[in-house]
């Protein structure tokens, strides 16, 4: 049973390689120009909306790394985001606001959780893996809800955003936007390099056929664990930014619905392409924003929309786009 990108082979051979090279450049250019557009249109909410998009895109990217390239369907990825956010929140509650402290702590906590849970999770396969990651996610969620000294169910307000060497760089919304932008770009380039590296080839090989990879001498378990930990740490980065953006942390960041939404974001764009995760996140959050502006009961529309996407739009937005271009070329 494979969870890899469904239309991988035809899409990669059908001359759409240039599209795959151009698309990320276009995406990041667009993100870079959003603050300008927001300034011209005098719509400041655009800035916060797209900051949110980029923050969640980092988490979706982390998820795509393990789901799309390792066939490890993690249904608990929101826990890493939440842990990163709680690291910032708890440190801030003790008066520590320095990025150089809170960022490494956020990454380390998320990575450590990924390491410990990964040891158990990666022993299981398929459905069991989905369910056990879900269970660990819930464990993190309930632990956070019972942290009475740090707000429990109600969450924790962060009074001040983190400062870098005492400088208040994250206070300015536009500066914060570009910090998030840099993080997303860095995460994307890191994932791309990882996937293309020797490590990435073994990781992808384990997706296709773990038995064969074992037979030619790779300890698949170790590679998968390493991939899972890296993904977890990236989730922590997303959480660090999220806590600073909202100036608030809450157990809801770790709820299983959040984990489900992250999976949807990845699938929405297209699995196993990395930039698909970014497109999917943007599409998900923008559709959500648009629908919730239309009616209070927007979820009644959103739910069936998801079902339709699954049934009809295989391969996500990228898959649909590739099928369209192929059809146009043939005509």
């Amino acid at each position: 049973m494979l969870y890899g990108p469904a239309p991988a082979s035809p899409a990669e051979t059908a001359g759409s390689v240039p599209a795959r090279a151009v698309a990320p450049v276009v995406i990041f250019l667009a993100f870079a120009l959003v603050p300008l557009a927001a300034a011209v249109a005098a719509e400041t909410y655009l800035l916060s909306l797209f900051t949110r998009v980029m923050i969640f895109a980092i988490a979706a990217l982390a998820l795509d790394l393990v789901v799309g390239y390792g066939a490890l369907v993690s249904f608990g990825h929101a826990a890493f985001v939440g842990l990163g956010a709680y690291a910032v929140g708890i440190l801030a509650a003790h008066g520590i606001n320095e990025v150089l402290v809170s960022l490494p702590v956020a990454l380390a906590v998320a990575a450590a959780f990924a390491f410990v849970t990964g040891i158990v999770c990666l022993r299981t396969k398929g459905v069991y893996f989905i369910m056990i990651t879900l269970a660990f996610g819930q464990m993190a969620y309930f632990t956070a809800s019972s942290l009475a000294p740090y707000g429990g169910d109600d969450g924790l307000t962060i009074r001040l955003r983190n400062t870098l060497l005492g400088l208040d760089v994250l206070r300015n919304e536009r500066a914060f936007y570009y910090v998030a932008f840099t993080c997303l770009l860095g995460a994307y380039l890191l994932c791309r390099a990882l996937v293309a590296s020797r490590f990435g080839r073994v990781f992808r090989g384990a997706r296709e056929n773990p038995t064969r990879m074992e037979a030619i001498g790779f300890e698949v378990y170790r590679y998968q664990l390493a991939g899972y930990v890296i993904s977890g740490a990236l989730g922590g980065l997303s959480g660090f930014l999220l806590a600073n953006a909202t100036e608030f942390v809450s157990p809801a960041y770790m709820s299983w619905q959040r984990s489900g939404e992250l999976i949807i974001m990845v699938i929405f764009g297209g699995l196993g392409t990395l930039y698909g995760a970014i497109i999917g996140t943007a599409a998900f959050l923008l559709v959500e924003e648009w629908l919730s502006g239309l009616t209070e009961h927007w979820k009644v529309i959103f739910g069936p929309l998801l079902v339709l996407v699954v049934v009809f739009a295989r391969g996500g937005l990228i898959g649909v786009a590739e099928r369209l271009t192929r059809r146009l070329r043939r005509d």
Partner: protein
Amino acid sequence: MSTALLLVQTLNGLQLGVLLFLIAAGLTLVFGVMDFINLAHGVQYMLGAYLAVTFYAMTDSFFLALTLALAAALVVGLVLEFVVFRHLYDRDHLDHVIATFGIIIFLNQGVKLVWGAAPLSLPIPDALAGSVVLMPGLLYPVWRLVIIGSGLVVALLLYCLVSYTRVGMLVRAGATNAPMVSALGVDIRRLFMIVFGFGAMLAAFAGVMIAPILSVEPGMGDTILILAFVVIVIGGIGSIRGAFVAALLIGLVDTLGRSFAVDILRLVMAPSPARTVGPAIASMLIYLLMAVVLYVRPTGLFPAKGR
């Protein structure tokens, strides 16, 4: 930690376990036979409770409401199967997760739209409303005993159905190797529909039975769904016996853990940190149990498939 309290909490744990079994049984069959992850199973439990509230308002009889709610839940289950799920059986698990997640979002909001966001309640039937004396000075509500009893009866029925009937045999065969059953000339799609409808009814039954104790509200199915997943993963996917054992185990561990964690911790640490740490540990307990079980036996306690 008195004996009386221990007894009451054990009974409460059994009651939660039985409830979990009713939900997990359908889930594990759908999972085992069709290899289909149905996250929407929890909303079927919620729907059962809501339908019972409505039918009770119409008929003023709990038992009529129960019967009508079960019938309606069956119809809803079959409609969902017909409209959505059957197009997804040959897709991978990710597609199942997203499609059924979409159904959860839709039905949770739909319920709010139809019945409102405020919690509703269903009264206990008069004949079963009182309490019984378990020990001198210890009262226990009859309704909770009824839940335990009816759950055990359903479990027994299910056991006979699966072990001694033709449909049960096909279900067991399907859980072991569905393509082979299909190749031997059994209409596997019809079998899927039967299993699915039956699972939906069991979930709705659980929802109706618990409705008088809990409040009926949107999203009530979500928490219980996760617990049911923990149950079937510990029990082994596709195994009714595993689901039963694991459901009781989870019910007891969760309930007893929540009641006694603070007391037990106070034996080894100061009272005030114990009060902080206790609830956190109690809520982690079942997930730790699951982690340990899966670490030792990656396919659960009673795996049905011979993979």
